[in-house]
């Protein structure tokens, strides 16, 4: 479904991703780990189409399409969802209004009629239950005054609403208490289907106790330097990153 080949990306002339390869197939869950500043969020942003980053080399295909040709909003409508590491506040715009706009934009793109108010409310109630978020939250402005955990739950709620084909969750587990972590994991697992895929970016093995990844990758210095199964995460938790860095071939 997603195929990244030899990707290099930079910001203001500073290369952050260099020669990265990654393939994600339908039904798979990939975990990406790696030290701070290694380029994990940058990779997520580049896949989502953030224009502040320049793609200097390489290709990304998604569902047979050249992803790099599509603007960010089209990628989103094609089913790519990014759960942000730092969700931003949009004062005065309620989550309900925000989601209704987003869903109807997507439906328009797909040639579907917009949801009526009643249909939308029904969907929202359903998803709220599914991801266990407080009813009042959706009447509040997007992320405004939310606690760290509420922001992350709100990302999962939006993911549930938008039903993406490819979800990228950037440290959605950071700052969550153990109950919230379970809720997030439950949400991800419930939304898991044979025809969609998830990339979870995380620093902690504990999330992977609840969401079992098919692959674990270590991103370092803008490249994936090691891949393995879930046992790799356990090993990293125990030993840190130094041994992987040493093992890694210099350059590509």
């Amino acid at each position, binding site marked *: 479904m997603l195929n990244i080949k030899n990707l290099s990306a930079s910001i203001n002339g500073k290369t952050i991703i260099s020669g990265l390869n990654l393939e994600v197939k339908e039904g798979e869950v990939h975990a990406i780990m790696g030290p701070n500043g290694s380029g994990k969020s940058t990779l997520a942003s580049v896949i989502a*189409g953030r224009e*502040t980053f320049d793609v200097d080399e390489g290709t990304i295909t998604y569902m047979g399409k050249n992803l790099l040709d599509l603007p*960010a*909003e089209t990628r989103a409508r094609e089913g790519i969802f990014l759960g942000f590491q730092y969700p*931003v506040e949009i004062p005065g*715009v309620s989550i309900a209004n925000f989601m209704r706009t987003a869903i109807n934009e*997507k439906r328009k793109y797909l040639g579907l009629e917009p949801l009526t108010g009643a249909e939308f409310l029904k969907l929202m109630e359903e998803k709220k239950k599914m991801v266990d978020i407080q009813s009042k939250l959706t009447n509040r402005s997007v992320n405004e005054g939310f606690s760290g955990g509420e922001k992350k739950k709100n990302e999962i709620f939006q993911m549930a609403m938008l039903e993406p084909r490819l979800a990228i969750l950037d440290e959605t587990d950071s700052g969550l208490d153990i109950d919230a972590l379970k809720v997030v994991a439950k949400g991800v697992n419930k939304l898991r289907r044979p025809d969609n895929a998830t990339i979870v970016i995380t620093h902690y093995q504990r999330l992977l106790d609840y969401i079992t990844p098919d692959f674990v990758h270590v991103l370092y210095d803008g490249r994936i330097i090691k891949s393995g199964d879930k046992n790799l995460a356990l090993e990293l938790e125990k030993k840190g990153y130094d041994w992987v860095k040493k093992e890694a071939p210099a350059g590509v």
Partner: protein
Amino acid sequence: MKDDDNKILQEVTGSDYKYGFYTDIEMDQAPPGLTEDTIRFISAKKNEPEFMLEFRLKAFRHWQTLKEPEWAHVEYPSINYQDLIYYSAPRKKPKYDNIDEVDPELLETFEKLGIPLDEQKSLAGVAVDAVMDSVSVGSTFKKTLEEQGVIFCSFSEALQKHPELIKKHMGTVVPYTDNFFAALNSAVFSDGSFAYIPKGVKCPLELSTYFRINAANTGQFERTLIVAEEGSYVSYMEGCTAPIRDENQLHAAIVEIIAHKDAEVKYSTVQNWWPGDKEGKGGVYNFVTKRGICEGDNSKISWTQVETGSAVTWKYPSLILKGDNSTGEFYSVAVTNNKQQADTGTKMIHLGKNTRSTIISKGISAGQSNNSYRGLVKTSKKAENARNFSQCDSLLLGDQSGAHTFPYLDVGNRTSIVEHEATTSKISEDQLFYCLQRGIDMEGAIGLIVNGYAKEVLSKLPMEFAVEAQKLLSVSLEGSVG
């Protein structure tokens, strides 16, 4: 990268005016220029009572002694007042009782503008008194209003039918000596609206008037007078759009509101006049004097305005809080784009005891526009325990637009409390990307963020007006991206 953001914003905000068109209706107009003869012509045309002509002439003589004000933070080429046409009216005599009698071309114009002069809107509870090129052409739901003793009609009609009411109130809140544009308006005003709510009556309908400028080179000089007697209530809405024109068009209106004891007046405006092209050419000059007086104890007046149009706006809806315990409110959203300039704000003059005022101003500047808030809060010696709260926020789109805040304070009483808060913010690239990532395009994202920012003010508008205003905010910042 920052340049990239700016480029995107520029494209998005470089919008074209969606409602620009021009209707050709045969005009019955005065020759260009302004002399005492012009004024006599206008007055005679309108078959006015003698006192009106005298008022006009006095105003004209005073105006001749005045100079155009230069203190506002706006620039525009000087206006040659002798080039303007001061009276024009649709040739067919107005005064229709029935909408069917109205010129179909005119109705079509209204249709294009989406002006709801139709049954639907009436059923929704709105009596419409549509003003086009200065002459009132249609009225609905007069009966409902008449039953309650409410008078709602064009200014000219009021001069014929209720001259004593006009004579008593006109010019008491905004005297012709007030300022250059007020004097000009008082001399040459063409028409406008009059609303009178008798004692104890809660006006059963939202009163609305649609103004429009349509004649080439014609200054439009509207005059509105609202009188709310003791214990009455009225909500009044004013809205307008204008067609694309090459010549600059001058608009210098006056609105006067009088609220007696325990009365409440809500005045809402959505203003969308032709702002000029991207270079700022050809837009409307909007120099308006709006003022209300809370004459009686416990009275209340609120101004709510959404300003998106005009090339140059100079407008300070103000309130004199004379009655004890009276309340004044000013809620404003002013959008400027391209080369638009707006210098707007309010004055709250506290004279009575325990008077309260609230000012919420939200400026939004895009393109190379300039948006200034200018506000005065004054408490007099006798205004014991007067209170004011002011909040002035500015939102900048891109880095070529300007926002300025000029708050003036004049506190004459030690027991009064005046608070002022101000913020300036930008739409961040993070916010835009967050929206894009959810599938909302750039225009939609800006519309959403801007509406969110202005929510506090929009929520003060009557429901259906709020919906129109939201669309307008998005449209006025919308561009050709996509």
